[in-house]
C-alpha cells in the first residue's frame, strides 16, 4: 500500500466513526428533543399564510428565501450545463 491509500483508509475510517457515534447518540426515533419552532409553524401557518399545507407555507413563506436560493441553484446548473455543451466556434 502506498502513502495515498493509507491516508485514504485513515480518513475514511475516522469519518465513518463520526457517523457511527452520531447514530449511537441521537435521540430515540420519533421523539424529537424540542419542537418549539415547528409547533409555532403548525399552529400559525393557516392564519399567517393562508395555506392549508404547512410544508408549502414553510417552503414559500417562512423560508421563502431558501426557495429563491434553491431556484437559483437549478438556474445555475442549467446555465452551467448549457455553457459546457456550447459550440466552440462562432
Amino acid at each position, binding site marked *: 500500500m502506498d502513502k495515498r491509500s493509507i491516508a485514504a483508509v485513515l480518513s475514511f475510517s475516522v469519518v465513518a466513526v463520526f457517523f457511527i457515534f452520531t447514530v449511537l447518540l441521537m435521540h430515540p426515533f420519533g421523539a424529537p428533543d424540542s419542537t418549539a419552532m415547528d409547533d409555532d409553524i403548525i399552529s400559525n401557518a393557516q*392564519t399567517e*399564510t393562508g395555506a392549508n399545507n404547512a*410544508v408549502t407555507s414553510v417552503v414559500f*413563506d417562512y423560508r421563502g*428565501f431558501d426557495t429563491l436560493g434553491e431556484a*437559483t441553484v437549478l438556474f445555475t446548473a442549467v446555465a452551467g*450545463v448549457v455553457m459546457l455543451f456550447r459550440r466552440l466556434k462562432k
Partner: protein
Amino acid sequence: MSGMSKIVKTITNVAIPFILIYGIYVIAHGHLTPGGGFQGGAVVASGLVMIMVAYGSVWTMEKIKEKNLSMLESLGAFCFILLAFLGLVFGSVFFNNYLVGSNSLFGTVPAAGSGLADISTAGIIPLMNFAVGLKVIAGLFAIVLVMAYAITKKEAKE
C-alpha cells in the same frame, strides 16, 4: 437516433396529456395538498423528457430550441424574484406575503383546523408555485435535452 418505434410514439401521444394535466394539478394545488412548484414541475418535465426519448433528441431540439428553454427559465426565475420584490413594495419587507387577508384573488384565509379550503387562498404562494413550476419545467427539460443532444451528436460524428 431518430426516435423509437411507432408503438412507443403512439403510447407517448396517448399518455402525454394525462401526465401534463397531473403535473399542472400538482402545481396548482401546491398550497392545499402535497405537492408544489418543484414536484409538479418535475412531473411535467419528465413527461416532456418522455417525448424526447420517444421521438429522439435531434427532433426535439429542432422543435424546441434550448435557447427558448433558457429564456423560459429566466422568465420563471424573474417572475419569482419579482413576486418577492412586490412584497417589498406592498408589504415593506422582501418576501412579504402581502396578499393574505386582502380578500382579493388568492387573498382569503381558510377556516382554522382541518377541512377543505378554497383554491383562492394563501396569497402569493400559488403565484410563486406557478413561477417555480415554469422554471423547473424549463430547467430540468433543458438539462436533459442539452445533455442527450450533445451525446447523440457526438455518436453520429464517429
